[in-house]
């Protein structure tokens, strides 16, 4: 389940559309970063043991628990490859294309 909402791009028309001062909602997101990725992680659920090491170590927080295993969200996955590199049962492979 995606736990965050990426809002439409911010297009202010009037000065009042800006917050008063440098203060706005925590977690206010208006863009995804999938364009940064040149390779994409893919989970093989047969091999995944649900140890959650990848969930713990993803710097982007893009891996979620799912039915005792894991699933990867792609909004902010930059294809760094840490999940694939750290998975102890080789259940994650990096493939050279973008979701």
């Amino acid at each position, binding site marked *: 389940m995606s*736990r*965050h909402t*990426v809002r439409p791009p*911010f297009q202010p028309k009037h000065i009042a559309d800006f917050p008063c001062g*440098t203060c*706005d*909602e*925590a*977690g*206010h*997101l*208006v*863009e*995804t*970063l999938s364009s*940064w*990725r040149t390779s994409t992680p893919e989970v093989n659920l047969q091999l995944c043991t649900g*140890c*959650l*090491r990848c*969930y*713990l*170590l*993803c*710097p*982007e*927080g*893009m891996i*979620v*628990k799912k039915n005792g295993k894991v699933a990867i969200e792609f*909004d*902010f996955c*930059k*294809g*760094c*490859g*840490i999940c*694939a*590199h*750290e998975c*102890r049962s080789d259940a994650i492979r*990096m493939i050279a294309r973008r979701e």
Partner: protein
Amino acid sequence: MSQTVSRPLNASTLDEREFFYGHKACGGCGGSLAVRLALKVLGERTFTAVPAGCMSAVGFVYPQLAFGSNAIISTFPGTASMLSGIAAGARALGIPDFHAVGFAGDGGTADIGIQALSGAIDRHDRIIYICYDNEAYMNTGVQKSGLTPFGARTTTTPAGRRLRGALTQKKNMFEIVAAHGIEYAATASVGYPQDYLNKIDKAKSVSGTSYIHVFAPCPTGWGTGSDVSIELAKDIVDCGLWYLAEFENGEFRLNRDPKQFTPIQNYFNKQGRFKHLLPEDIEQIVKHRDREWARIRKQWIRISPPPAVAGEE
């Protein structure tokens, strides 16, 4: 305390919510992982201060605001002083049960921010100060900081024929902080994530100031692949160039005392910033490492490390 029953803290019991994502850190950034894990342990009743540096530059570019809980950028020198102010304000307003946490880089902590940190510890302010150490000023493009290790190439300690990288050793921030008589201080590494989670969890219940110095590799600054940050952060502990320790009730404790260090070479070989080192440089680094460990083993009390979770030997 917000957690009524205290279950062991690990990947499955950790708060599933994410409080730091949508940030623009380089892929594989150790610092962003350190921030993400800490904020998950601390939960939503948290005020975070982050100075100028990577985490603010990647986390707060309006209108993309990547901190899911309260967060504010401080001036570069003023992380600890701003945290003291946040804690004092919240106390005065009677806000219960909050955490005031700061994430500053190595330079932000050991150089420009050391004065404010010293003041906060001296006041025993109830704040958690986390230094994510990637061993140079990375946001401005890899310049030497007080925590750049001996021999490391940075853009202000070039490695050429005459000089080969940084000529100074890392400042010993852990013991400098301990010498203040701080309530709780610890060293950690994203290469030992469970140990890092345990120390953040302990810091939550410290009644005074706590300081956690977490080792956080930087692929861009170190000239490594983006997928090896965790491996490197483990290697550095295993080869003895970094240690996992705590300072509490006026006493040092080693959480990990490797019988046999792994060869330093296989830590250096994976990184562009050490490629230029000559055998005599390596020898000097090894000699310094062994002298430090001899001192530590003599002066610090050693206890058996807390139960390690599967997958983390």
